[in-house]
């Protein structure tokens, strides 16, 4: 089990459709050998939760350009309600500093800003997926 590649959902919630970031990240994680489940923008929160459960995702990456990060706390609540609190969530995009604090308090693992190196994102996702897998083994 330990050896399976990280499974990561790359998605956008809310109303914005600027998906250059999410597509570049998805391609880059895939090229790094991960199993990437990519969705088009405007996913409903319950859809993302359902997808995470069905795909046994380790990490959910939310891309946000135009304030959609403001509803990420709703996603965190929904994951908790579904018993999926072990799935790690990262956010990438335009997130103001004070909003970042709010997201971290809501349980988001990490926020990446414009200019972040792809290499660092890959490393972080791999790390988070590993933690989640270890956590699952302990639980089992």
């Amino acid at each position, binding site marked *: 089990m330990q050896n399976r590649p990280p499974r990561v959902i790359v998605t956008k919630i*809310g109303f914005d459709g*600027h998906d*250059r970031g999410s597509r570049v990240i998805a*391609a880059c994680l895939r090229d790094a050998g991960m199993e990437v489940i990519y969705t088009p923008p405007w996913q409903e929160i319950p859809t993302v939760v359902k997808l995470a459960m069905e795909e046994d995702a380790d990490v959910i990456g939310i891309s946000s350009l*135009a304030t959609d990060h403001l509803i990420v706390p709703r996603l965190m609540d929904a994951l908790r309600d579904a018993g999926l609190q072990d799935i790690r969530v990262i956010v990438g995009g335009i997130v103001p*500093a*004070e909003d970042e604090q709010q997201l971290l308090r809501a349980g988001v693992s990490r926020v990446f800003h414009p*200019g972040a190196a792809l290499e660092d994102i890959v490393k972080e996702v791999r790390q988070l997926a590993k933690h989640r897998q270890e956590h699952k083994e302990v639980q089992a």
Partner: protein
Amino acid sequence: MNREGQSTVGAQAMQASRDRWQQEFAAGAKQPGPTTNRSGIPIKPLYTPEDWSGAQYMEQLGFPGEYPNTRGIYPTMYRGRSWSQRQLIGLGTPEDYNQRVKELMGLGASALSLIPCNSVFRGYDADEVPAELLGTCGTVVNSVDDMALAFDGVPLGEMSTALNDPAPFTLLAFALAVARRRGVDWNRITGTSNQSDCISHFVANHMFFRLALQGARRVVTDHIAFVNQHVRQWNPLSIVGQHMQQAGATPAEAMAFTLCSGIQYAEDCLARGMDPDQFLPRFTFFFDISISLFEEVAKFRAGRRVWARLCRERFGAKDPRAWRFKFHGQTSGVDLTRQQPLNNVSRVTVQAMAGIFGGLQSLHTDSYDEVFTVPTQQAARIAVATQNILREEAQLTDVIDPLGGSWYVESLTDQMEQKINAIIEMVDAAGGMYAAVESGLVQKMIGESALAFQTRVDAGEQTIVGVNKYQIEEDARDYPAPQYPDRERMAAHVRRLAEFKTNRSQAAVDRALGDLARAANSKKDNTFAQVVDAAEAGATHGEICATLRRELGFGQPLTIV
């Protein structure tokens, strides 16, 4: 000695000089090898008459306002009138917007824009969506009453307005309803339906995509036909290259794909029997301006030439006004950085220069803080001042097409034109732009270009100051704070929408929406005429979009990784 003899001597001297220079250059240059621009065109260290002789001046360039319009679409260009300074505005409730508009009119603004909230872009009313997202990126306008508040005190017959208003064009419908209430003749209303290009939304900026592609296509053509007839000074179509370039297309690809979309819209109008000399003068374009200055200038000059030739030769337009490539430019947000944000002022200045040298008709300069938030007032003022400085202090507008005749710029213009024409041929061979985007061909090319650029940045081959070079330690807390609308005022606005729905005649709304649904299923009716009727009857934006989605399908673009 005869003239021929003289020119032989000249050519020999030039060859000797060139050989000497090449040796000296090869010995001394740190980077003697070729570099390429963003469009993949190799860039030499020096250009001479050997690269562009000017022998075909009249065929390739001509004079400003003369076919093929390479040097500009008007004889006078900026000596006649400046480009329009059209800054994007939109935030909060209609009252919040109106306050900003009145401020701008007080400062002498002659042109306005209205950017609606993302929930509006996606086709919903304020009572259907998470409250946190209302008005954070644009103004919440859902009804004729909202539009009346937004445009309170704005003289609709005098002030040019650009509405960010994709199919089914409800904002224009609300504006027309407000004009009717005020007794303003629709034919006096000027402005543009921005974001009317459904193809660019399907490909790139998915934010504006509401209806299924072929349904949106139908509504766009209906809209052009209606506006040509009833709102004759309005530009119903803005064909957009900006989204594709922001999504990663190279400048050459962005120009080429945009012209391919233009071909499809024009051919749809021709298929309805519309007159190219009537509809083409009302086509406009909207492009991104990156910091790659000379490449952008060449992109615009080449685009102007290719479009003029398409209009005359392919669409059969005879009126010179129908050959004009009118475009709005926006400085590229993708080039801006979160690191050392004030550096963005310099970037925007270079981008704006590229647009001005490229001969644009209307310009939006980004505020340096757009990487963080909807612009603060101070940043928005700097953005406007940048335009004023370039025009009036630097006097960039004194000479028409000032880079024309540069061996480099002319040679680059020709090479961009070749690249553009090659892509147009490829898309034609794929069955036109609709077929090319439905098969994912265009999205794939753009995705590859985006990843290639990011890879160059990561490898340090493309410098971005403060990001991959010249970094300094910064404290993120010093960055500008976000501005979100006042929660209470927004909640009151949502309650007002409920009151609006209670107070209107439900029978009239039901009838109008029924007519709209029927029009959508009948080839003979004009769907946009029914949207206007529905808006006047009190139907909301969300209701109109929902009706058309039921009949024409929900817009879900193809996304490819």
